[in-house]
């Protein structure tokens, strides 16, 4: 009896090994990794990008005659988990390229892993300059924060006519701290007054009570408040500021454009102004039109967020590079991605500069009647 159990166990193990053994070489798919926060504080942003990648995969499912398989891993909005998730894509799944991640900190955590494994990564909306700086294998299809910070500083100076601005930054988030710094530099240059930034308050990811920081800010009577950061905390900040009777306009960055920002902020976030990548009101390329039609057909007429368009673009850029490389060699794919020029993406033409960043116009949006509404487009040469 005992022996028969032993034998059957051995047989089962042997059979499993056989399956595993023949599974590998038979794979006729091209694996592309999707490295995004699906849970945790950045989940809404990550899901929006994944939506775009999946849509692109449905519309363009093949490359070099092989089916493209998406391997989606959750980096859990956590820098440590991000490094683990990146390692899983690189070592276990053996993907040929990676898309993501929403959140520059998370991209930066995964960056060294991709570089060591020589796998190209294309960020959709991670805007901190350090994501691609010094990393030969990281690219992005969006603009970077020095431009975004300048755009918002110009807006605060010319449109809001602000002389004094208070900054609220998410101190544990590289994106937020970086953008706040670029805004400060640009704004001080415009006003010629180093005291024009009246205060810099910090908070941590996951905080829910901002009343102490905001009460301090209220006493300083700024003309505007620049609060780049994660959409969940930002919505609460605007809400608590309005409850404390702060009437100054709030300015922010691209991360605010998630439905959850309006869900949580409700009427309190009416009138906030932020910069982002793409507006459905002004489709730029033929791909934009295809993308918009496919997205609306699939989502009952709803309009996509800018980062969804960028996730879509990141997939297309990789696919295009694989085609041009005519190979699944990751280094060759990387070289082709670097050569991307005037590629018509959903969120505009993509030309990657020598620092692997896309040079693109920024779009300014506001919240009006519970919806993100297009205000204006700012071309990159304004800097």
């Amino acid at each position, binding site marked *: 009896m005992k022996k028969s159990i032993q034998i059957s166990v051995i047989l089962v193990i042997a059979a499993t090994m056989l399956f595993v053994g023949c599974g590998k070489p038979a794979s006729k798919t091209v694996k592309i990794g999707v490295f995004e926060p699906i*849970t945790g504080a950045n989940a809404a942003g990550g899901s929006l990008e994944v939506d775009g990648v999946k849509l692109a995969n449905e519309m363009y499912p093949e490359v070099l005659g092989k089916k493209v398989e998406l391997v989606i891993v959750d980096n859990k909005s956590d820098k440590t988990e991000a490094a683990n998730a990146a390692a899983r894509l690189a070592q276990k799944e053996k993907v040929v390229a990676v898309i993501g991640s929403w959140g520059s900190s998370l991209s930066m955590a995964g960056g060294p892993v991709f570089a060591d494994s020589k796998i190209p990564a294309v960020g959709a909306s991670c805007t901190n300059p350090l994501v691609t700086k010094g990393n030969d294998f990281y690219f992005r299809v969006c603009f970077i924060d020095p431009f975004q910070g300048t755009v918002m500083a110009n807006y605060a100076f010319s449109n809001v006519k602000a002389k004094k601005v208070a900054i609220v930054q998410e101190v544990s988030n590289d994106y937020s701290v970086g953008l706040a710094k670029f805004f400060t530099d640009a704004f001080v240059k415009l006003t010629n007054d180093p005291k024009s930034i009246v205060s810099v308050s910090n908070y941590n990811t996951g905080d829910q009570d901002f009343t102490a920081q905001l009460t301090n800010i209220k*006493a300083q009577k700024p003309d505007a408040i620049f609060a780049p950061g994660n959409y969940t905390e930002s919505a609460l900040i605007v809400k608590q500021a309005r409850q404390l009777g702060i009437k100054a306009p709030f300015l922010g960055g691209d991360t605010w454009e998630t439905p959850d920002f309006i869900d949580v902020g409700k009427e309190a976030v009416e009138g906030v102004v932020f910069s982002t990548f793409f507006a459905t009101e002004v489709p730029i390329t033929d791909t934009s039109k295809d993308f918009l039609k496919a997205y609306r057909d699939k989502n009952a007429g709803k309009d996509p967020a800018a980062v969804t368009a960028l996730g879509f673009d990141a997939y297309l850029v990789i696919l295009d590079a694989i085609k041009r490389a005519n190979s699944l060699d990751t280094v060759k794919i990387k070289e082709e991605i670097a050569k991307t020029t005037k590629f018509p993406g959903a969120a505009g033409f993509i030309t990657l500069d020598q620092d692997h960043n896309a040079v693109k116009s920024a779009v300014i949006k506001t919240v009006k009647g519970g919806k993100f509404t297009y205000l204006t487009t700012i071309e990159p040469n304004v800097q």
Partner: protein
Amino acid sequence: MTADTFFQHLANALSLGSLYALLAIGYTMVYGVLRLINFAHGDIFMLATYFAFYIATTAIMPWWAVFILAIVLTGIFGVVVERVAYKPLRDYPRMSIMISAIGVSFLIENLATVVFGGRPKAFSVPELFSGLVMFGNVRIITVNLFIPVVTFVMLIILLFVVNKTKTGMAMRAVSTDFDAARLMAIDVNRIISFTFLLGSLLAGVGGVMWSLKYQQLQPLMGIMPGLKCFIAAVIGGIGSIGGAVLGGFILGMIEIMAVAFFPGATGYRDVFAFVLLIIILLVKPSGLLGKSSADKV
């Protein structure tokens, strides 16, 4: 700092402190009876907010009924957790139960992420709690007036149950000695279940008040408040119900006033809480109102 700003800070601090106090009394009571640090307390608190959210969105009933139902469900859930994860370990060293509590905490967090989704949910608040009251130039949202009241009502009910009722007497007996209590014909299992029911109901009340104040739900939202109310309970003297309230207020006051008087240190808010914990543990390990005991760990 002007007087208005100071009083606004004070109002913010009192409201945050009473919320910490509300959470801490449930934490400390379970410890007081069982000598068990219930690490899952924060997660049970999180579940209460989701219960309230889903009941409110699926059933048509007045808001107070939604809250009562959510709190009762939370209480029942707490008892189930005790039955499944703690009761089988009753005769093992306390360390085993504590590790089981940590396991329960992770289990609830991850289950909630899978079931409810990782994206934050917005909690709609009845008008009664979102009104604005002005005291001079100090602005207070009405929910911040309700929280201290609820905290004190809960405190009084809890003190009454523990000190004046027969069940409370049995709870105190169990807390002194399991075996002796059993010999005195006390149904220890029933008393422990009751303790968890009470503790989870308090977590439920805390969860409802928290979501009325911050109006946003996330599966991992229980972790930080759980840690904070643990600190509050230790500052006040873990096991002491009055101490937990005191600890909660001290913690809220320190967090807000640190930012108010040292604006440069705003990113270090949580550091103040943890530094305070270390100082208290070094200077007076039994806490401000705690009784010192030599051997209980």
